[in-house]
C-alpha cells in the first residue's frame, strides 16, 4: 500500500494540477487511438489493437474487483463467457443479429449471473472466496462444454456480425474492420470514463475503504456486503460486455472463454500493468497481446519465458511494472472536487 507523501513535500503540485495534467494525457492518448486507422494502415495492427482494447475492458473490470474492492476472484472469466455465449447461443442460427437486442441481452445475462454468483461468493472471504469463485468459473466452463445448446468443445461459429440499425440506416458496418475498431474504441472509452467516475464518486472511496479495513467501514454504518455485491455485479457486467465484444470480433465462441486459465491470465495482466489504476490493466493487456505475438517467434516454448517473466515481476515488482514509473493513487478525487468549492 503506497502512502501519500506529505503535501508540503510538493508545495506547487496540487491534486488539481496533477489531475488536470492527467486528463490531458488521457485525451491525447484517446485522440491517438481514434486516429490510429489513419496513422497505421496495416490491418494486422488494427486487429491487434482491437484485441488489446477488448482485453483492456475485461482487465479494467477485474481491477475494480481485485484492486479497488479487494475481492480476489479467480472466476472472472465466467462472466466473459456468459456475455459471449448469450450472443452465440441466441443468435447462432439467426440471419440477422440485431445489436439493440443482442447487447442488452448479453449484459442482462452477465449481470444476472454476477448477482447470483456474487451473492453466494461474498459470504466467504480470503482463500475461500478465491476458491469459490474458481469453482463457479469452472462450473460455467463445464456447462458450456457439456450443455446441449453450446456445441461442446467445438464452440459456436457466428456467421454474421451484429447490425447496428437506426431505422433503415446502418450506423456502423461491423463487417468492416475499421468500423469495428471504432465500435470497440467507443465502448472502451465509455467503460474507462464510467469506472473513473465511479471511483471518484463516494462509492469508489467506500470500496477502497472496504479493501483496506472492512470492519471499520462497516462500523461507520455501511452495509459492506451490499457494496461488495454491487462492485461484483458492475465488474461482472463489464466482463460480459468484453465477452460480447470478443465474440462479435472473432465470431467464434468456445468454452475456453471461461476456462480458469483465462481468469489467471487476467490477474497476470493486472499485475503486469499495475493494479489499482485504470490505465495499468490496459497496459498489461497490451503487453500480453504483444508478448503472445512476439514470444512464439523466438521459441516454440514461449510459455516458459512467460512463466519466468511473471515470476520475475511478482518477486521484484510487486505492484506491477507501472509502479516503476508512477506512484499509486489511493486517493479519490473528491477532495480535489472539494477544493473547488472552497
Amino acid at each position, binding site marked *: 500500500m503506497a502512502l501519500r507523501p506529505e503535501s508540503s513535500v510538493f508545495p506547487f503540485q496540487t491534486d488539481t494540477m496533477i489531475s488536470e495534467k492527467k486528463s490531458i494525457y488521457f485525451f491525447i492518448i484517446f485522440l491517438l487511438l481514434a486516429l490510429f486507422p489513419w496513422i497505421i494502415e496495416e490491418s494486422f495492427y488494427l486487429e491487434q489493437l482491437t484485441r488489446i482494447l477488448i482485453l483492456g475492458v475485461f482487465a479494467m473490470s477485474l481491477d475494480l474487483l*481485485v484492486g479497488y474492492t479487494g475481492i*480476489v476472484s*479467480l472466476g472472472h472469466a465466467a462472466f466473459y463467457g456468459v456475455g459471449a455465449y448469450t450472443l452465440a447461443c441466441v443468435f447462432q442460427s439467426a440471419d440477422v443479429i440485431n445489436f439493440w437486442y443482442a447487447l442488452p441481452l448479453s449484459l442482462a445475462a452477465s449481470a444476472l449471473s454476477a448477482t447470483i454468483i456474487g451473492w*453466494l461468493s461474498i*459470504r*466467504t*472471504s*480470503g*482463500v*475461500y472466496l*478465491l*476458491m*469459490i469463485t*474458481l*469453482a*463457479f468459473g*469452472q*462450473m460455467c466452463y*463445464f*456447462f458450456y*462444454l*457439456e450443455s*446441449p445448446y453450446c456445441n461442446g468443445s467445438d464452440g459456436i461459429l457466428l456467421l454474421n456480425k451484429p447490425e447496428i440499425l437506426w431505422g433503415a440506416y446502418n450506423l456502423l458496418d461491423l463487417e468492416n474492420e475499421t468500423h469495428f475498431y471504432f465500435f470497440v474504441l467507443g465502448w472502451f472509452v465509455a467503460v474507462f470514463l464510467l469506472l473513473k467516475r465511479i471511483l471518484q464518486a463516494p462509492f469508489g472511496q467506500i470500496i477502497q475503504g472496504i479493501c483496506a479495513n472492512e470492519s471499520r467501514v462497516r462500523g461507520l454504518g455501511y452495509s459492506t456486503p451490499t457494496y461488495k455485491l454491487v462492485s461484483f455485479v458492475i465488474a461482472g457486467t463489464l466482463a460480459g460486455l468484453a465477452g460480447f465484444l470478443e465474440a462479435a470480433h472473432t465470431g467464434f465462441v468456445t468454452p475456453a472463454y471461461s476456462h*480458469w486459465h483465462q481468469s*489467471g491470465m487476467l*490477474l*497476470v495482466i493486472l*499485475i503486469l500493468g499495475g*493494479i489499482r489504476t485504470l490505465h495499468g490493466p490496459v497496459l498489461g493487456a497490451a503487453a500480453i497481446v504483444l508478448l503472445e505475438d512476439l514470444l512464439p517467434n523466438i521459441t516454440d*516454448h514461449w*510459455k*516458459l519465458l*512467460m*512463466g*519466468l*517473466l*511473471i*515470476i520475475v515481476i*511478482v*518477486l521484484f515488482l*510487486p505492484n506491477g511494472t507501472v509502479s516503476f514509473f508512477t506512484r499509486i493513487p489511493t486517493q479519490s478525487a473528491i477532495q480535489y472536487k472539494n477544493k473547488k468549492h472552497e
Partner: protein
Amino acid sequence: MIFSKKIMDASFYLIQFLNGIQYGFLLFLVAAGLTLVFGIMGIINLAHGSFYMIGAYLAFWLTNLTGNFLIGVALAIPVTIGIGYLVERTTFSRLYSRGHLHQVLLTYALILIFDELQLILWGNDFHGIDVPEFLSGAIQLTDILSYPTYRLFISAICIVLAFMMYWVIQKTKLGMMIRAGASNREMVQILGIDVQRLFAIIFSLGVALAALAGMLAAPVTSVYPGMGENILIISFVVAVIGGIGSIKGAFVGALLVGLVDIYGKTLFPELASILVYALMVVVLLWRPQGLFGTAA
C-alpha cells in the same frame, strides 16, 4: 431373471463405490499436501497439480528405464522430494509475507513453466504404464463383473499412508509442530521453532504426496499433458469442503467428492462435472469455513 439383474445392479453399484473410494483416496493424497501447505505456510499453491503430473511422468520415465513399475516409483519419490525442496527454497520462501494475489500469480507462472518443461522433455503424447504382473489381474465379483487388483492396491497404499500421516501428526514432534502451526501460524514462529526448515519439510512432503498420487494413478489414467490441471481444481474443492488446513477435513472431503463424482458420472452423466462444484457451493453456504475448518 429379475433376481439376477438385481444382483448385477448391486455389484455394479459396489464397483462404483469402490471406484469412488479409490478416487477419493488419491484425491486425499493431493489435497492433504495442499491443505497442509496452506494451513501452516499460508500459501495458496495453484502449482500443486503440476507435482501430480510430474510424479506421473517420472513414474513413466523411470519405469521404462528400469523395466519395473515399483522400482520406478521407488526411485521417483526421492526425486520429487528434491524438486519440492528446490521449488520451496527458490520461490515459495519469498512469498510468505505476500498477499493471496501474488501467490496465485507466482504459482500460476509455475504451472506454465512445468507444463512447458513437460512438453519439452516428454512431448505431447499419451503414455500407458504397465503394472507388475501380480497387480495386473482382476478379482471376479460375479460371472460377468470383476474388479482390477491394481485399484485395490492403490486404495491399500493410500490407507497405509493415511494411517502413517495420522501417526506422524499425532505422535511425533514434527506432527506437534504441524498441529501447532495449523491452528496458530504466528505462534510457531514465535516459539523458536526453525520455521524455515519446518516449511521446507512440509512443502517437500506435500509435493511428494501429490507426486505419489500421480504415480499411483498413472497406470489407471495413463500419462498425458495437462493431467495435473483437473486434479488441482478438484483437490482445491476437496480442501475447501473439508476446511482449509484440516487433514481430517481433507480426508472426509476427498471421499465425499470421490463418491459424488463417480456416482454422478453414472447417474447424471450430463451434469457430472458440475456436481462436484455444486457440492462445494452447498457446503460453503452451510458452513463458510468448510466441514472441519475453524472460523477465521
